[in-house]
C-alpha cells in the first residue's frame, strides 16, 4: 500500500516576483541583476509571478523565456483578476495560483527592488512558540524568528533560545538567550530568576554577575547601549 503514489497538500516558502510594472523585459533585467549577486542561490530556484491586478497586458511568453534563460523556473502566476488573463497565462503554458500571504496585502505603489529588500531583512512576524512542559537539564529549545514562552521551569543545564524575547513563567535556572540573531530590542522575563546565564543580542551575564537583590525574584532583563539592564517585575 505504502508504495503507491499519493497526492497531499503542503506549503512551501517561495520567492515572489512582484510585477508592478507590466514590462516583462524590465522585470527580467531586474532579476538578472539580483542573480548576479548570488548566482548559486537562485540557480533552478522556483519563482512565483505576482500581478498587481490592473488590466495591462503582459507578455507571458517573453517573461517565461527570459526567466528560464536565467536558470529560474516559474511555478505559477498569481494576482490575476480576469478570466481572460487567466486564459492567457494558461496559453503561455504556466499554472495559475491562488492565495499566498502577499496577495492579501498588495502594495502596488512600492517599487519591486525596495519590496524585495524588505522581505530579505525582516522576516514575517510569527506568533510565539509556547512550551507547556518543564525544560529539563540537557534539553535545548530554539524559537526561530519568534518569541519563546515557557510555562514551566527551565532547569539547570537546559537552554532556551529565541530570536525574539524569552518569557519563563516558572523558575529560570538554566540559560536564557534572547535576540539570538542580534535583535537588541528583545528581552528576558521570568518569574523567578536563578539563571546560569542571560544573554540578549550577544551581551551576557553569568549568574554571579546578577545583582543579589534580584536573585530568585521576578525580573525583566533588557538591553540598552550595549549593556544589560535588570529591573524587578512589578505585578
Amino acid at each position, binding site marked *: 500500500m505504502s508504495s503507491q503514489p499519493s497526492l497531499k497538500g503542503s506549503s512551501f516558502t517561495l520567492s515572489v516576483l512582484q510585477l508592478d510594472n507590466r514590462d516583462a523585459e524590465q522585470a527580467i533585467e531586474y532579476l538578472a541583476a539580483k542573480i548576479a549577486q548570488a548566482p548559486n542561490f537562485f540557480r533552478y530556484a522556483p519563482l512565483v509571478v505576482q500581478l498587481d491586478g490592473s488590466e495591462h497586458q503582459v507578455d507571458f511568453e517573453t517573461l517565461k523565456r527570459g526567466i528560464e534563460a536565467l536558470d529560474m523556473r516559474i511555478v505559477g502566476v498569481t494576482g490575476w483578476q480576469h478570466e481572460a488573463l487567466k486564459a492567457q497565462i494558461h496559453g503561455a503554458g504556466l499554472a495559475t495560483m491562488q492565495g499566498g500571504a502577499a496577495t492579501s496585502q498588495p502594495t502596488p505603489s512600492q517599487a519591486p527592488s525596495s519590496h524585495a529588500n524588505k522581505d530579505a531583512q525582516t522576516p514575517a512576524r510569527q506568533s510565539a512558540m509556547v512550551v507547556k512542559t518543564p525544560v529539563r*537539564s*540537557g534539553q535545548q529549545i530554539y524559537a526561530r524568528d519568534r518569541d519563546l514562552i515557557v510555562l*514551566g*521551569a527551565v532547569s539547570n543545564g*537546559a537552554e532556551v533560545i529565541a530570536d525574539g524575547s524569552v518569557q519563563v513563567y*516558572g523558575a529560570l535556572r538554566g540559560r536564557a538567550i534572547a535576540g539570538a540573531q542580534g535583535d537588541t530590542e528583545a528581552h528576558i522575563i521570568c518569574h523567578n530568576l536563578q539563571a546560569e546565564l542571560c544573554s540578549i543580542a550577544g551581551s551576557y551575564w553569568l549568574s554571579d554577575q546578577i545583582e543579589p537583590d534580584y536573585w530568585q525574584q521576578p525580573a525583566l532583563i533588557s538591553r540598552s547601549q550595549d549593556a544589560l539592564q535588570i529591573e524587578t517585575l512589578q505585578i
Partner: protein
Amino acid sequence: MARIIVVTSGKGGVGKTTSSAAIASGLALQGKKTAVIDFDIGLRNLDLILGCERRVVYDFVNVLNKEATLKQALIKDKRCENLYILPASQTRDKDALTFDGVEAVLTELKEQGFEYIICDSPAGIEHGALMALYFADEAIVTTNPEVSSVRDSDRILGILDAKSRRAEQGLEPVRQHLLLTRYNPQRVVDGEMLSVEDVLEILSIPLLGVIPESSAVLNASNKGVPVVFDSEADAGLAYQDTIARLLGEERPLRFVQAEKKGFLKRLFGG
C-alpha cells in the same frame, strides 16, 4: 494489562537496584505476578541483592540471542512465589541489547500473565539506560537529596519525555514518579541535605516515596534479602508505603521529620 516500570536515575549509586529489588518483592508479596529484569549488562548486581546469585544458569543476553528460552532463564524467587528474576549477563557488553530483542522478551512476559515488569536500569544515559526506559509505561526516578543526583534525574526526565517509545509514537507520556532515597531529616535540618520540598520544586513530578538513610539497607543487600522484608526497619516500612502508593493507595509520608531531642539530651548534648 501489564505495567512496565523502569527504575532509573541517571546517576550511579543512588539505590536503583536496591529499590528495584524492594519494589518487585513488595509487589509480589501483594500477590501481583512480577518480573524484574537487570538491564545492567556486564555489571550484574540484582541477583546478589535478591539472594539468587547461585541459581543463575542462563541470563537476559542468552534469551536475546536465542541461546536459551525465557522460561529457562527466569529464576523463581524462593521467598515469594509471584516473583521472577531475569538476571543480566556478566560477560557480555550492553550492545547485546537490541530494540527488537527487548521488545520480544517484554511481549513474552506479558503473554505469560505478568502484571508488573520492573526494569532495573544501569546508571548513565547510554545505550543500556535507553533500552531500559524505552518501552516503559511508568518510571520511578530514584534520587538522593543532593544537587548532582537531582540534576541527573532532571536529565533522565527529559530523556523519558523525548526518547521513550511513548514519546516517539505520540502516546500518553510515561508516568513519572519520584522516589527519594537515603533521606536524613537531621542533615536536612542542619542544612547539609536538600529537603523533600527542595527536590520536588526542581523536578516537579509526583512523589512516590521517601526512603530514610538506614544501616538496614546495607545489611539487607549484604544478606541478599530485600529490605522490604524488614518490618522493624524504617527503610523497610518506607518501601512498603511506596509499594502501596504504586498500587493506588494513599498513605501519609513517614520518616521525613527530624527526631526531637529530649530535654536532658538537649541539656547535656547527645
